């Protein structure tokens, strides 16, 4: 829930295990304790989307926990370090080496799909220059812009942990298959129905709305790759495209808010132990001040459901 700095400080000092999202400035002032933090000023609160540099979004956990930091060279151990029956929340600073390493290689890390790994990419207020995306290890009250901070949680053996996503996008089956010769956060060329062409040309010629992501086909599950920019023929993404994945542009949706709430209505009985949602959903969906019925949490600059995903709500259930 959203809390003041003072109330958050009290909770930390009471010894609780906490996940905290908030502005870089506030996170750096919090006392040492059993907490992890990441920078964002965007939140989905119970009463709607909010932007605040005065409040912190605090999630408390009553499970055994350990907190670890990981450099780009160490992040491959994140799943191996996770508890067998539990879940781990990774916070990774946007555009850091560890962000890029994780985005490219997470699927090959030891035990990645045998453990429950979620998390998010920390960011900044998009309207305030000079901020730095950080992840904070509360044990030493140190903020990192080059390391991931991970809260590993151990859930009792009689409980079942589920990692779930809400992806309002699906492949537009009437659009061509797009593939890439190389993995990467950017691309110049691609194959459109196996014919090589410049991706920026394809987007322009077909008047593609780049608010819609590319949706990768993962054996029945759609994984989104969001467009970041198109400059001088180079198309940049918020997560890497992969050469072994078949993509299509997402099917258009009508009303973002309505689409979200209609999806969430089907999940009304789900109780999320943790949730995060994408900044692009927040911005493109105009969610500030609008109520999304469930799944409060930070608004983030990339979401982790095992691998890095985009324009997706990620949540964890413990039943």
């Amino acid at each position, binding site marked *: 829930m959203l809390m003041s700095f003072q109330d958050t400080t009290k909770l930390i000092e009471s010894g609780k295990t906490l996940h905290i999202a908030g502005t870089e400035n506030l996170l750096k002032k919090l006392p040492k304790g059993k907490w992890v933090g990441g920078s964002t000023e965007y939140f989905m609160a119970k009463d709607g989307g909010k932007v605040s540099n005065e409040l912190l979004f605090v999630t408390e956990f009553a499970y055994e926990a350990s907190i670890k930091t990981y450099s780009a060279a160490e992040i491959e151990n994140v799943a191996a370090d996770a508890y067998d029956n539990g879940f781990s929340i990774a916070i990774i600073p946007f555009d850091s080496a560890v962000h890029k390493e994780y985005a490219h290689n997470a699927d090959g890390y030891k035990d990645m*799909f045998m453990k429950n790994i979620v998390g998010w990419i920390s960011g900044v207020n998009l309207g305030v220059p000079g901020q730095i995306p950080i992840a904070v290890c509360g044990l030493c009250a140190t903020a990192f812009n080059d390391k991931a901070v991970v809260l590993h949680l151990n859930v009792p053996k009689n409980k079942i942990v589920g990692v779930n996503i809400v992806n309002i996008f699906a492949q537009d089956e009437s659009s061509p298959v797009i593939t890439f010769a190389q993995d990467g956060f950017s691309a110049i060329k691609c194959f459109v129905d196996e014919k090589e062409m410049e991706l920026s040309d394809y987007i322009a010629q077909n008047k593609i709305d780049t608010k819609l992501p590319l949706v990768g086909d*993962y054996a*029945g599950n759609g*994984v989104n790759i969001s467009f970041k920019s198109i400059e001088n023929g180079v198309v940049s993404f918020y997560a890497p495209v992969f050469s072994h994945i078949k993509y299509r542009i997402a099917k258009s949706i009508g009303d973002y808010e309505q689409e979200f709430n209609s999806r969430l209505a089907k999940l009304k009985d789900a109780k999320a132990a943790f949730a995060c949602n994408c900044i692009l959903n927040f911005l493109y969906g105009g969610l500030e001040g609008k109520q999304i019925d469930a799944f409060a949490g930070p608004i983030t600059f990339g979401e982790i459901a095992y691998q890095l995903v985009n324009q997706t709500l990620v949540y964890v259930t413990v039943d």
Partner: protein
Amino acid sequence: MHLTAQQVEKLLLGTQTFDHLSFSMLLVRLKMLYMKDSSPSVLQNCTKEICGFLDKFQNAMITDCAILAKL
């Protein structure tokens, strides 16, 4: 649930779709590995990994297990 190497090969070369997110992601990675190197040792490793996954998570993927049982 146990799959034989033969069943796993069908899975790696097939177009089945699944509900379970991490199983789908795992399968896509293993398909890529097997496409790069279709040797018996890679197939054996894929089989071990898939069976290990199913041992742990099959209770959470009843619909998907019904698809796997038809391989």
